[in-house]
């Protein structure tokens, strides 16, 4: 059985795990998983599992770096050694992890209403327990849920998804087709991007908050991949956001029921 997507996709229109082009993997999430922290969440997207705890806003530890008008968002991402098929000891100064941390921090720094908590620090701690693609995406989603749980005000819920592009045959004249939510194998084979959106003003379109791509693809021309990937991604984010809202509502209902 071939282990790549490209060779069989044209005939079957199904990916290796049997999904269609726009099917998301199974997403499960729960919030307030750790009541002793300010906010917490556990999110799985397929086989990718991320646990997030949020602390804050609280007084920061470092004296010099305090912003007098806004809260500072700090992120720490920790990929467990047992997260991938090969046991991999984490490298402390992994540049890729640092870049991901910086992406998550800046995404929420501009998204949250940080002006309400000047001079304080909001710390996001992400633990990747199992990794099967969608690393940045799962981190953003888990952090988003945990921040909602922590009661930090935000204009809308940030949701992320990855989207890629598959060219069905070697014939360069066929249009490339977008696919949604890539797993690890697909990410290694195909170009893909991670995109996160936030809801726009009521009645207007969603706005893109994060857009990162580590692979290469053609932007313009007849076989442009980028536009279709982005459009699919924005739609995919909507689906993810609905799922997250569902989870939060269920949790809220449970809390209220407990109080009655």
């Amino acid at each position: 059985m071939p282990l790549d997507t490209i060779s069989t996709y044209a005939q079957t229109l199904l990916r290796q795990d049997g999904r269609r082009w726009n099917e998301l993997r199974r997403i499960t999430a729960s919030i307030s998983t750790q009541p002793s922290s300010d906010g917490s969440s556990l999110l799985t997207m397929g086989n990718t599992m991320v646990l997030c705890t949020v602390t804050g806003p609280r007084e920061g530890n470092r004296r010099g770096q305090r912003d007098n008008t806004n809260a500072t968002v700090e992120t720490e991402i920790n990929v467990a050694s047992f997260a991938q098929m090969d046991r991999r000891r984490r490298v402390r100064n992994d540049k890729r992890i640092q870049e991901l941390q910086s992406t998550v921090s800046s995404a929420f720094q501009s998204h949250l209403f940080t002006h309400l908590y000047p001079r304080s620090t909001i710390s996001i701690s992400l633990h990747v327990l199992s990794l099967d693609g969608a690393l940045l995406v799962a981190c953003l989603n888990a952090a988003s849920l945990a921040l909602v749980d922590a009661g930090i005000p935000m204009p809308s819920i940030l949701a992320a998804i990855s989207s890629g592009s598959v060219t069905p045959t070697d014939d360069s004249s066929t249009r490339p087709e977008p696919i949604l939510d890539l797993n690890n194998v697909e990410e290694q084979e195909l170009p893909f991007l991670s995109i996160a959106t936030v809801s726009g003003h009521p009645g207007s379109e969603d706005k893109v908050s994060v857009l990162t791509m580590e692979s290469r693809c053609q932007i313009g021309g007849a076989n442009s991949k980028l536009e279709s990937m982005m459009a699919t991604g924005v739609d995919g984010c909507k689906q993810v956001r609905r799922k997250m809202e569902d989870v939060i509502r269920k949790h809220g209902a449970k809390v209220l029921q407990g109080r009655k």
Partner: protein
Amino acid sequence: MGLAVLPPDFEEEVVHPVSRKYDDYQDDSDTSMDDANGRPSKRFRLSQPAASQIVLPGETITDDTQWMRGHGTYMTDSSTTIIATLAGILKTTNKLLSVAPLRARYTPEIGDLVVGRIVEVQKNRWKVDVAAPLLAQLPLSSINLPGGVLRRRTTADELQMRNYFQEGDLVVAEVQQVGSSDNTASLHTRSLKYGKLRNGTFLAVSGTGGGGGVVRSRRQVFTINSGAQSGGDVDVILGVNGYIWLSKHVQQADDQGRMSGGVSISNLDDVVSTAIYSSQNDDIGEGTRREIARISECIKILAEDGVRVDEDTVIKAYEAAVDAEMSVADQAGTGTRVSEEVRRRIVDAAIH
């Protein structure tokens, strides 16, 4: 009792609250692609208060202009729609719309009675942790110094700050003011009922502002009578910030107050002595200690189950706990922790 290792509670199916006023987008299939038309209309008109309606960040509450927006909402410049910024319950008070979050950090307000822990000793003030976004401050000029209320604070006082409060000490204080730019609380302990805490134990409950946890009420400080259990009375201080102090009841302060016709500015210096800054505990009997531990557990149970913690609920919970344990006292020697059934009875008693 041996070690109990239990599987995690599994999620029960929760019924969606019935008070939702808009279309319920029930389809959770993952294959729908085009939802430009399928998106539910999330607006509704608030013609009457919608109690216990859960709103989420980004959700439009209303665009009726008669409403004013309060905490937990925001309005964009371009329209008059009010949008929620927190996940919580919609509250309507007259014409004010606000969202009470399910969980949130404590935000200090003037007049709050809080219990705090000293974390830093600075040149002429202390920094106090009150579970707020920023540390609160307790200036040297805001505490009672032995020798008189109106005495000037000298440099000698500044050098001896640790004789009054040192890192780790617990204080009960009142919020005097809240900084306008950053909401930093400024505390004071200028009354005899404030000051350093001793003779007891501390616990913290989280989730203030959400409905669980400590709520602002008229009486934050009260006494529980536990004479029947061969314990003394227990003073309970419920800090609005979720920090709680339980201690042996102190009788003298009341007597003194009554004797001299109340404590006023003029005789405050007689009453204030260095003793109020000591960390020496009185002798506390076993019975009292046991009751303190029991009340502590009751409060923890209330907090874990999301019941609000105030004088009423704590007293009811405690009485239920006493009753419940009396009925299982026959099986003495089993040494069990508070069992599930007792928990439920405590919570039920507190709610009703």
